[in-house]
């Protein structure tokens, strides 16, 4: 493979263009390695070279990050490269944020992989969207040699589009996502190890972190139910026969809204849910979308009128991200149409 072309990002200080006084420096491109870039090029050891150094003042970037990314992208486009390296930023907060944003935003704009490096305690780590690799460094530039060596090795692999494995093995900071790996030992061997460690009182050795609880506060009680307009919602996949709008059978990314019929018959409605045995609901769709019962209690005056449409999605393997969005979108619509409460049936 020919030498990897590296585009390097630095702030004014590390580029040697000035201290705090020059922190307003506008984005610029220098066609040569600068500051730590010289060391980086040494560490690339002939496998790569720095084709350009993008520089921006820390204050400038902080003040107008989008405009700076735009300007840096226009400069970067004039200098074809295989990989973008930003920093290292150590514990410098503003510089760290700039490195993180540049690695994420600029790499994507230029269509090349990117890596940055900073102290794990740098606030920019927490602010990262998890779309770039951040290598951990010491808090101060005393760790420059080590940081640059690891960045050089990582950048070379990124440029070669080698698959990058798990954070612990590859030495980058976790990006908040799960990656499948093939372990040397079976899950059975590992779980017995984990149990024995736990019995010996060793600290947590789990492979799946449990995230913090996200409590959902219940809505206030419905007042005046007898007059309240009630909607029916289900994640049970009840759709008009033939599934005319192609609602997904599992891992739904969308929801549908259909006029509420007088009667929900198996002749005209079907269930496309792939997460439970649907044979019984195929015989009577009311068992998932309880229209028969709702109409009966509405007639009896226990609730107000039924909302004229029902809302449906499929809740099996559906991501929480999509489910949250469905909830928001449906709630906005229900509110707009004066619905006071909804009955949501789950499977």
């Amino acid at each position: 493979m020919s030498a990897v072309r590296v585009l390097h990002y630095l702030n004014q200080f590390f580029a040697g263009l000035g201290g705090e006084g020059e922190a307003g420096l506008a984005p610029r491109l220098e066609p040569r390695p600068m500051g730590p870039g010289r060391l980086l090029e040494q560490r690339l050891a002939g496998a790569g070279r720095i084709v350009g150094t993008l520089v921006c003042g820390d204050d400038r970037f902080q003040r107008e990050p989008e405009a700076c990314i735009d300007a840096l992208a226009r400069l970067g486009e004039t200098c074809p490269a295989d990989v973008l390296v930003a920093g290292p930023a150590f514990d410098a907060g503003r510089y760290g944020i700039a490195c993180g944003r540049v690695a994420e935003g600029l790499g994507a704009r230029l269509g090349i992989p990117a890596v940055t490096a900073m102290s794990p305690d740098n606030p920019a780590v927490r602010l990262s969207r998890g779309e770039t690799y951040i290598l951990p460094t010491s808090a101060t530039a005393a760790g420059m040699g080590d940081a640059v060596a690891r960045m050089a090795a990582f950048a070379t692999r990124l440029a070669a589009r080698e698959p990058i494995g798990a954070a612990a093995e590859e030495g980058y900071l976790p990006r908040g996502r799960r990656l499948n790996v093939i372990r040397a030992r079976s899950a059975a061997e590992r779980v017995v190890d984990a149990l024995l460690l736990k019995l010996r009182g060793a600290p947590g050795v789990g492979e799946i972190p449990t995230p913090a609880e996200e409590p959902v506060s219940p809505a206030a009680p419905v007042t005046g139910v007898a007059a309240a307009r009630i909607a029916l919602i289900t994640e049970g996949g009840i759709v008009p026969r033939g599934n005319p709008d192609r609602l997904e059978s599992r891992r739904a990314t969308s929801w549908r809204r259909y006029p509420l019929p007088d009667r929900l018959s198996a002749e005209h409605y079907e269930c496309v849910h792939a997460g439970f045995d649907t044979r019984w609901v195929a015989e009577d769709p009311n068992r998932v979308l309880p229209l028969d019962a709702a109409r009966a209690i509405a007639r009896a005056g226990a609730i107000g009128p039924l909302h004229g449409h029902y809302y449906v999605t499929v809740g099996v393997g559906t991501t929480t991200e999509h489910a949250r969005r469905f909830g928001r979108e449906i709630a906005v619509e229900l509110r707009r149409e004066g619905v006071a409460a909804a009955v949501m049936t789950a499977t």
Partner: protein
Amino acid sequence: MELELDTFQVDRILPDAETRLEGRTLRVDLVGLERHARHDPRLAAVEIDAVHPGDSARIVHVVDAVEPRVRIEPEGPAFPGITGPPIMAGHGRTARLGGMAIVLAGLPPGAENPSFWQESVIDMAGPAARACPLAVTANLVLTVRPDPGLAPDEGIVAMRLASFRVAEYLAGAVGRGEPGTRERLARSEAPPGRPRVAAVIHLEAWGTLQRAFLYGHGVEGLLPTLLHPNEVLDGALTAASHHLPAIRHSTYFFQNHGVVRELLRRHGVEVDFAGVVVGRAMWASDEDKRRAAAFTAKLLHQLGVAGAVLGFAHGGHAVTDTALTAEACARAGIAVATLMFEMAGEDGTDFGLVQRLPSAEPLVSTGNIDDLMSLPPMDRVLGGSEVLGVGGHAASRERGDAALRLPVRHVFAASIPSGNGRLAGAAG
């Protein structure tokens, strides 16, 4: 209880005029074997073929896998309650053909219903093979077409029976001589000081869709019960599930259950392996779930264990059964470690657990089943000709030998709760 397990190792399976084992090559009279399998009038067609690790081959519509076994002493069925009377397993002598599996493939009646059946694939090479613990065995693929007029339940019974009969027939034909290795599986008295531990196996039970059998008995109404580890490994448990192939149990991985094997291996050395509690999960009501969880913890307490390995059975609310079992164990002062699959989305950015289950920690991952794999085209496709419904839509069809974008959840046994796989989710 002591079981002598004789292993006849098989590396290659070749068609021949006569069935015999030559060294590690199993020569199989395929015509005779097909005739034997087709003896059941409920089967419209049977086809048998062999694939080996590294072959450019894809098996589609995989139903189950079974290791060939024959019960030598006492004489009886290798799968009690399925292929013969429900005599107790786990003692005496059983012969196995190691290194190979009978892979049962085909579409059961009712497969067009996506809530009933999901596509299930074994690739013998490429990324899916690396994730699949059945891509390392020589596989005799038994493709079965049940009579289309049968009800789903009966069609499935007929298909499954064919695989068990072929497994018994093959092991019976070549597994009676001097074995390559003979293991003695027993829970001899452990020296003092070893922590007393158990394994908990949760089984699927969800109508015809997901089933497991204990001595041929459907586990739908089963309260947790106690098994000797040898029983698990000797044909007491069989599987019949048609959903989520990556995480469902299969007969082969009962016979070679990773956690049971691992605890037996360490018995007397690092642990005192007290036994296996099996129970169904996927109970339909909160009361049922709590009763079963409390019952499991009670049995573990009666066994006097300090710790237990928990698993899972299927996705969705079955994870609640695991969580409640872990909570009941915690109340009983029993430490647990738990195998768990993840559903973290195609790109791994979603919350990967069905629910939080802090009592079950530490959680050991069997992989993110949403992970989307890019699979190369294959020279051969067995079990059927198409890959069905692997997108969001049940109606999708793709050529079986084509390059595929396939979520791990369709890769047979990739994230199996027996712990036999090496796939794992990791922070990335």
